[in-house]
């Protein structure tokens, strides 16, 4: 069997794949022998089915090494502070609403995550929900994050009054950016999905945050077909004083409460490590979907990040193998 591996794998080009019958014998022993040979000779055992091994010649390219360093999983850490919200947007990927259970991460866990994030090589923390400003201790959660790393806080910007405005004012402007959701230059489209009057209050929130001296990023969630004609929207954001690089357009995802949108799967998403009260998820867009739950164990954070990277490498290797295995011509 080893002789067959040498001969068959030696006959294909680097990164080419070949199936090699492993012959008769105990499947586990044959698999182990094939794996040992591949490890020793620097080849990649893609899979063993029955008694046939599929081997890729040479070492697999490292998908992590091919990523832009900013996209390396674990560079940014998302935390869902809570899942309840004052709005019930019809496309919310997290299924948040006033009826949703809070499922708060809590100050202790946020603080521990922030601390471990530094050692794990995270360079930015992102807090989202739900609506984080529903939490009475949101300023303390933010302070735990900004004390160690630059932080972004996602909000609908509609609650900057009274004690919540006081909480906003206590946040560290030098370390915190606010990302406020706004879908259109006029109220119609925004209110259609988020509720009547929500556009006007969000715009007011943007102005408040801006006037309070915060860096404000505005993020729109749009159906793919509407993402082409954005000039009026950008002009409106310009008029609000939002810097061009802080005007973010996201495609609507078919996740959570959305009944349409682009399909996002583990295979098609570059992961962004996301923590909720329920565990570690592949990406913030799927933080309420079990199909993208990575592990229930939030701590230690480094292990969670390592596991996400391992799975990403595995998924990409499988995709590469499939791409080579099913040529279209």
């Amino acid at each position, binding site marked *: 069997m*080893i*002789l067959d591996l*040498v001969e068959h794998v030696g*006959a294909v*080009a*680097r990164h080419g794949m070949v199936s090699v019958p492993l012959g008769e014998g105990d499947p586990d022993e044959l698999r182990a*022998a094939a794996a040992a*040979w591949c490890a020793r000779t620097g080849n990649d055992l893609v899979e063993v089915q029955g008694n046939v091994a599929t081997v890729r010649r040479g070492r697999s390219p490292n998908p992590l090494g091919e990523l832009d360093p900013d996209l390396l999983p674990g560079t940014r850490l998302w935390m869902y502070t809570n899942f309840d919200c004052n709005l019930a947007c019809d496309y919310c990927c997290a299924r948040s609403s006033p009826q949703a259970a809070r499922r708060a991460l809590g100050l202790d866990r946020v603080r521990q995550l922030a601390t471990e994030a530094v050692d794990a090589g995270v360079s930015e923390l992102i807090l989202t929900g739900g609506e984080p400003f529903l939490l009475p201790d949101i300023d303390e959660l933010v302070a735990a994050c900004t004390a160690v790393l630059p932080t972004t806080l996602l909000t609908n910007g509609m609650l900057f009054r009274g004690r919540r405005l006081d909480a906003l004012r206590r946040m560290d402007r030098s370390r915190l950016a606010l990302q406020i959701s706004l879908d259109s230059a006029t109220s119609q489209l925004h209110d259609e999905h988020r509720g009547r009057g929500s556009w006007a209050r969000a715009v007011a929130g943007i102005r408040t945050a801006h006037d309070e001296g915060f860096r404000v990023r505005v993020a729109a969630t749009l159906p793919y077909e509407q993402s082409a004609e954005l000039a009026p929207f950008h002009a409106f954001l310009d008029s609000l004083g939002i810097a061009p690089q802080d005007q973010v357009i996201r495609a609507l995802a078919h996740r959570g409460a959305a009944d349409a949108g682009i399909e996002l799967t583990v295979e098609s998403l570059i992961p962004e490590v996301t923590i909720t009260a329920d565990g570690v998820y592949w990406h913030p867009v799927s933080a309420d979907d079990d199909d993208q739950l990575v592990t229930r164990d939030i701590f230690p954070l480094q292990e969670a990040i390592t596991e996400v990277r391992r799975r990403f490498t595995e998924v990409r290797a499988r995709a590469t193998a499939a791409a080579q295995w099913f040529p279209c011509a």
Partner: protein
Amino acid sequence: MSEPLMVGAVAYTPNVVTIWEGMRDYFAGTSSEMDFVLFSNYGRQVDALIDGTIDVAWNTNLAWVRTVAQTDGACRALAMRDTDTVFQTVFVARAGSNITGLDGLRDRRLALGSQDSAQAAILPVYFLDHAGPGADSVELVRLNSDVGKHGDTGRSELDALRAVLDERADAAAIGVNTWESIGREELMPGAFEAFWESPAYSHCNFTALPDVPAERTQPWLDLLFAMDWDNPEHRPILEMEGLRRWVPPQLDGYASLFEAVREQRIPARW
């Protein structure tokens, strides 16, 4: 800028294309660019070197010996892999065969690789004659499965090993690279054991003729020697070509093969 240095190599596996495209890319944009031509066998490549179709040939040890013979020694070796300076032939038998040395092959069957393979045919006979009972005392089972490529494919050596497993031979002579590729004695426990390893000898080298002056080859060699195992851009090429660094040629390591070729009257164009 001068014309690219044309390097010849033999296409013994599809990987050769990847290797030499990688080499070409490494030299691209430098003052010493190269391109390559692939041949189906070493006889054609040496012909092309002599008639000037290529400037440099990536030659096996037998191709080097034959080039020396056909140019009356006018050719020169430019560089080789570190692994080419310590090549060996390994004699293996079924585990538990109790063959303990070359003398144990007397009146036994020894499987050899292709007749133009220095490591698996020509030098094994030489070693039998000079360090063993003499080739005439051994039944040679020749497996000429990749003639023309000087044993580069490894195919004939695998066939020799299969002959041992199938009890069509009592032992086989293979290159140390094939021995390594099957995991020595470790990955097939109870299958094979090595009972004699030859002294180290030289294997491949880059060969040029005097028509290609040192002013053309030296800048290319300087860049070649600068390839760095620790550089992630260089490493894949070095791994595929089976070396950690390029080194100056060690011509003393060809002495045994020159002698073997003369003794065995190997044809000049093999």
